[in-house]
């Protein structure tokens, strides 16, 4: 361990932060259970139309026009700028499903300005259901495979701690999406999956160093060992997260409407992930009572016990 660098006592605030983490996770789970996610078109089915005008569009008027035409449940929103409008309509009765988009466009054209059709997306309810199932499965599969990986990679307490950190990150990100009603679509799912890979990787680097230091030091106080390991990997942890966040910020501001939710998910995720790789992993290791004995090469006791 280096003597020249200043040590931050990370473990000092561990109880307070641990409680905060638990509260956030529980809060997120409650939100997800009660409010659920604001599922995007990919998962609910329906039609989404994006129109563009040369002048600003009056949203209230657009809403009213649509209402009069029988699209009472249309969700009308600005799309990036005041000249772009996104209209989302749930699956309709009576109109041939794949023609809803055209209808919506015709309804609005001329009424709220000279419009140009930018994008029409129609997803059948059946396809939506399937994508939802598939995505849920993908999420579980990713978590499951990470579990298997961690199980091979670590044993006992370290495995539990890293997986807990992973779940912590994913649940909090999903919870935030639920709280702020940010739309959750396929690209956000991609972001969450990428986050799973990223978060685990982050935790592994820290956990690895903790393990290494337990083995290579004569120090016996787990507090000092863990704190040292976190301090040693701190620059790396922050630098990696920082560079990744730099590109995500670029994506957030310049990537357009499609990439906004994607970069939001990852920005939040990486922030939480960085925190969790420092605190959640170490915190849980303490709670599970990690000690130097965990790293001694186990002696074959069973044989001695045989009569």
């Amino acid at each position, binding site marked *: 361990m280096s003597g020249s*660098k200043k040590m931050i006592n990370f473990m000092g605030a561990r109880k307070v932060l641990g409680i905060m983490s638990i509260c956030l996770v529980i809060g997120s789970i409650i939100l997800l259970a009660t409010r659920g996610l604001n599922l995007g078109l990919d998962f609910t089915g329906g039609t989404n139309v994006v129109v563009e005008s040369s002048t600003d569009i009056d949203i209230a008027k657009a809403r009213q026009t649509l209402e009069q035409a029988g699209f009472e449940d249309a969700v009308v929103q600005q799309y990036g700028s005041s000249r772009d409008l996104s209209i989302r309509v749930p699956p309709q009765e009576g109109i041939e499903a794949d023609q809803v988009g055209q209808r919506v466009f015709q309804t609005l054209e001329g009424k709220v300005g000279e419009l140009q059709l*930018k994008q029409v997306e129609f997803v059948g309810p059946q396809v939506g259901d399937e994508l939802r199932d598939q995505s849920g499965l993908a999420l579980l599969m990713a978590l499951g495979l990470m579990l298997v990986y961690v199980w091979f990679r670590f044993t006992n307490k370290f495995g539990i701690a890293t997986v807990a950190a992973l779940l912590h990150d994913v649940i909090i990100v999903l919870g935030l999406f639920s709280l702020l009603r940010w739309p959750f679509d396929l690209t956000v799912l991609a972001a969450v999956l990428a986050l799973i890979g990223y978060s685990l990787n982050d935790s592994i680097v820290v956990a690895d160093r903790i393990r290494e230091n337990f083995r290579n030091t004569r120090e016996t106080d787990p507090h000092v060992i863990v704190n040292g390991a976190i301090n040693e990997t701190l620059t790396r942890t922050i630098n990696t997260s920082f560079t990744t*966040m730099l*590109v995500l910020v670029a994506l957030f501001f310049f990537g357009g409407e499609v990439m906004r939710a994607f970069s939001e998910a990852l920005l939040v995720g990486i922030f939480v992930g960085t925190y969790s790789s420092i605190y959640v992993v170490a915190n849980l290791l303490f709670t599970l009572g990690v000690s130097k004995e965990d790293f001694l090469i186990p002696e074959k006791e069973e044989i001695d016990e045989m009569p």
Partner: protein
Amino acid sequence: MTRYPRWKFFLLLAVLLGCGLYALPNIFPDVPAVQISANAAGEEVPASVRRQVAETLDQAGMEHGPGETVNTSWLVRLDSTNDQLRARQLISDRLGDDYVVALNLAPTTPQWLRAVGASPMNLGLDLRGGVHFLLQVDMETVIGQRMEAWSGQAKMALRDEGIRYRDVAIDGRKLVATFDDQVAADAARAPLRKALPEFTLNQAEETPRLTLTLNASTLEELQDYAVEQNRTALNNRVNELGVAEAVVQRQGADRIVVQLPGVQDASQARRILGRTATLEFRLVADQYSAQRAATGIAPPGTEIFPFRDQNNRPVILEKSKIATGDQVTNAQMGFDQQSGTPQVNVELDSTGARSMQRVTSKNVGNPMAVLFIETKTDMKTVEDENGERRQVPESTTDRYVINVATIQDTLGSRFRITGLDSPAEASELALLLRAGSLAAPVTIVEERTIGPSLGRENIEAGLKSMVLGMALVLVFMLLWYKVFGIFANIALLGNLVIIVGVMSLIPGATLTLPGIAGIVLTVGMAVDANVLIYERIREELRNGRRPREAIDEGYNRAFTTILDANITTMIVAVILFSAGTGSVQGFAVTLFIGILSSMFTAIIGTRALVEMTYGRGARAPSKLSI
């Protein structure tokens, strides 16, 4: 002290040069072009037509390239997109119905690059604009029709053997044959087994009833056949629409993806894709009076249909068909010489022609009708027993007579259909007849239309965020790690070249907007490997190691951690690829490629640069700029 092995330098150089070469075509912009292809599939565009195209463009005063053959089409480059639209109209007017003129983009890849097989990346629909359809093949209809046919076969087999049966009923995927007694049921086993090898036979206990269950393998074959047939028919139709680089692909058991880049008018495409139209030629049963037809009860052996052009007046037609739409080998729109009304000139295959000849020769002076059969499939909302609303496809079939004409003479393989409303209808009917009918009705279950302006915006947004994100990372690395930061930055640029090169090399890989996000993200994450290594080197230096040793230690000890870190993300990319669709798969692909190449550049690449800078000379460096 370890010397860096020479082969790694060469490997690095070879990979970078190779990928650089294949990444190069992406720098050359695409130019607008028109693509002319013959209506008949597989036919080349003859030189005379090529001359006509050039003449047309010259007359309109448009600058254009000399033209080139792409597959079997003729591609002519133009100056601007404005020219492109006008050129299509002009050429299409000049060449008429026999050729399809489509808008396309021509790559400006130089000849020497094309010679080594280098071409730009495929861009997804979200970047180039176009229409994406996901079509669901209605299997139940197909199976229902086949079950009808099989039940007929069963009855015929029983009749041939002289076995009396009460009924052969269809029950889902089963046929249930009921007999008067056990003896008849037993006798029926052998002939049924022989007549219907596609079924498994079992007998219900104590009853004179035989149940035939359709074999799973046959069912699968039937599905495969129907989907494949539909795919082929859709492919033909898409070709008829004249869309360049269209994709028609099977997805899963019963779905077909159709992607039409550059198509703006989704409604026309939708109409052509979703429709199944066919024709039947039948004799009019004119021995019955009009009053008889008006009762709506068809005499035996006949059916009643409305005559569309005559206020839906009912017409009685013979049940037996003379010829059907699938026997049509060619159909072209044309105009009647005298009246100028639109018509479709039809050619039949040999079976159809023989039948037509046989029937018409015996019926000169009698009327013949053309029956138009169109199946449209809509989604209908129903409420199931749990009170949940679901959408189910519901097919409606319209059958109506479009034309009744007196047979003037024995007809052969060529004749014409009149009685069509408009030239547009005639050309659409000709198209549908030419392109073949669908084996099963299809429903559009997903549709995504991306306007060309949005495609361009997406490309710009993607590039802008990539350039900015990259610039930020480069500056940060330079400031934080100084000379070693420069190494990492060079590696990062090399990484980008490799990603683009590999993406261009893999024929199936498509760049989408999330794909660009994947590249941007790997740019951010790629430096992680270098951060890990450099931090380790710094630490070793602090612990009092000499620079050479610190470098060795840094690279060696960080390696397992880097591998670890990247494996997790690669696993995720694979899952995402298998679970996602289209654009999200694009993200998985770039993420995967990006991680692999970043490991390569960040470990082998920066090491080579470090060795070149600090490894030379007899004396070891005393200080590192890190």
